[in-house]
């Protein structure tokens, strides 16, 4: 069995993403975020105060951790993604 490291408490499978381009498509979201592991669900903000944000739920906590570490500050169509663990 591979030796597993202890995962800090604040790490979890749900990422809260901000600064997304308003017209981002589900193909693009699944492409960008799916690179790091299986995706359970994505909820995109569609209201005045939630546009440009999304919740990306991974199947596995390692996927979320890898995605956050790789994608924080990632440039999508000229905007830098802000990614936080959702608590």
């Amino acid at each position: 069995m591979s030796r597993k490291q202890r995962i800090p408490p604040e790490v979890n499978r749900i990422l809260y993403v901000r600064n997304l381009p308003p017209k981002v498509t589900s193909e693009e979201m699944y492409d960008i975020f799916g690179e790091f592991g299986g995706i359970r669900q994505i909820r995109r903000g569609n209201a005045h105060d939630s546009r440009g944000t999304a919740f990306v739920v991974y199947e596995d906590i390692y996927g979320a951790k890898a995605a956050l570490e790789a994608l924080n500050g990632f440039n999508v169509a000229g905007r830098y993604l802000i990614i936080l663990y959702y608590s």
Partner: protein
Amino acid sequence: TNPELYNQLKIEQDLDYRNRPLTDEDLDNMLPSDGYEIMEVPASYIPK
């Protein structure tokens, strides 16, 4: 049991809990519904 084994066991249990399957209802309870929409899974999506 030796501490190392016990430690690994604890890590596994923690991971199992934090990786437990989430039903749609779980997600509805955890995440906002108003102001948000669930994105369609693209036909081309192949889970890694």
